[in-house]
């Protein structure tokens, strides 16, 4: 469904992505994990058309989308829940939902989608006229997901949905993500919190300093110490050997 090949992104002289390739099939939950500054957000922003790529190829549903405007890519069916939620704090909860459907013209279907997301997150309907800035962190995350769903996406990309949330709230967020996946939405999940992401993902990519260092099923990534290699630059079993700690 989404196919990224040899993608390069530079910020001035610094290269954030160096030949990244990622494939996602219809209906999958794919996790992209890696440490801070690895290029996870850059990859999402390049796919969404916010950051300009220096080279490579991005295809979605058979269309080449590299260099297309953010609005066009959204219309084709890719929607983003950004890092830190970034809900519009001064808009009401309801306006936050409506603005998620800005790019759409099918008014009746939009009304049905509002019912759908408020069924998933009942709090949004209860406090529809409140400024969204008064929501708690968890509620803001729910609103950000609902807003992204209002664009009726085929592929939903979530950037660090667990960031800064209490564990019990993270549970609720992850349950919601699984429900969306169950409803047929393909999901690309970016997380620093690798354990969490791997617990629901079918497959995962490990990214470190702008390159994909490993990809495979969640179990494959989990074993083998690959996560440690991406985060710390060496495998834990190597480290054990070097430091002479007996197993």
């Amino acid at each position, binding site marked *: 469904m989404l196919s990224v090949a040899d993608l390069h992104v530079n910020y001035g002289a610094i290269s954030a992505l160096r030949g990244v390739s990622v494939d996602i099939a219809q209906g999958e939950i794919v996790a992209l994990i890696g440490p801070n500054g690895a290029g996870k957000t850059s990859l999402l922003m390049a796919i*969404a058309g*916010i950051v300009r790529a220096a080279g490579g190829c991005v295809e979605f549903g058979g269309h080449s989308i590299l260099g297309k405007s*953010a*609005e066009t890519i*959204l*219309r084709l069916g890719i929607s*983003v829940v*950004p890092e830190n939620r*970034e809900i*519009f*704090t*001064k*808009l009401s909860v309801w*306006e936050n939902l*409506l*603005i*998620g459907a*800005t*790019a*759409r013209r099918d008014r009746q279907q939009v009304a049905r989608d509002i019912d759908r997301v408020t069924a998933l997150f009942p709090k949004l309907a209860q406090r529809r006229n409140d*400024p*969204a*800035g*008064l*929501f*708690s*962190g968890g509620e*803001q995350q729910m609103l950000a997901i609902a*807003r*992204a769903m209002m*664009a009726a996406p085929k592929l939903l990309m979530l950037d660090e949905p667990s960031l*800064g949330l209490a564990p019990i709230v993270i549970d609720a967020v992850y349950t919601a993500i699984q429900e969306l996946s169950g409803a047929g939405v393909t999901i690309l999940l970016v997380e620093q919190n690798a354990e969490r992401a791997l617990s629901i993902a079918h497959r995962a990519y490990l990214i470190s300093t702008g390159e994909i260092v490993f990809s495979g099923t969640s179990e494959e990534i989990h074993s083998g110490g690959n996560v440690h290699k991406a985060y710390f630059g060496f495998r834990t079993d190597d480290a054990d050997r070097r430091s002479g700690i007996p197993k």
Partner: protein
Amino acid sequence: MSYFVQFLIDAISVGGLYALVALGIGLIFGVVGLVNFAYGDYVMIGAYCLMLTAGFSVPVAIVVTMVAVAAVAVASELFVFRPVRTATPATLMIVSFSLSYALEHTFVMSFGSLARTINFLPEMSRNIEIFGVRIAVVSLLQIGATVVLTALLAWIINYTSIGYQMRAVSENVKMARLVGVNTNRVIIAAFLASAVLAATVSVLFLAQTGTATPFFGQSLTIIGFVATVIGGMGSLVGCALGGFLVGFITTALQLALPSSLQPFREAFVFGAVMLMLVVRPGGLIMIRTAQVRV
């Protein structure tokens, strides 16, 4: 008593004019983050349009002026501000200064720098008497226009889809683009709305004073800018209140100052503004939800 009512009406009508200017400046600042120092020149261009169309009937002249000012505002966005959209606020401000000078001196070259006079809407400078108070018709017109336009703007901003898109762009441009808001269209809409306000100020100003120079926009820009600052940058209600406050202070000083100090009235007005900002640095209206929740 009638003396006080007269003062009140003067203050409200002057304040209303300033409020309209402040709203125009505050709207562009809120949506684009641009302090547009050429805003007063839109008003000046409107006034010259009215003088040039003096032969036509008044409604025709006003429509032509609205269209002309809107065209200038949109052109300045397309050809001047859009190419430097991503520059720092300081650069944007300098660009708007340059635009202001370019417009003013184009008018000096075309029409000379001397004040031009016109008897625009003579019936407006008449006074009418209500309950023993003499009121200039133009004052009533100013108050009426302020109320209608402020209400209209508030309705657009708060209850229409272009309105919440404007508020979204104002809060977070990147996110607005991510949810599919066409930011260029929203910014053009903001410039159009500010042009309607500017052209209205042109009509009211000319009806009151009947005279214009290529430079009269400058002082309006400064007053409007000061009003937006005391209102609390980014709040439109604050802009309007700030405009009224400056109008009230100006009118009160006009009455209170001895005639030897009258020429220095502006020094007292801006002194009062500075004092107010020392007491309340965030402006009159501080937006409750503007703080980030962690």
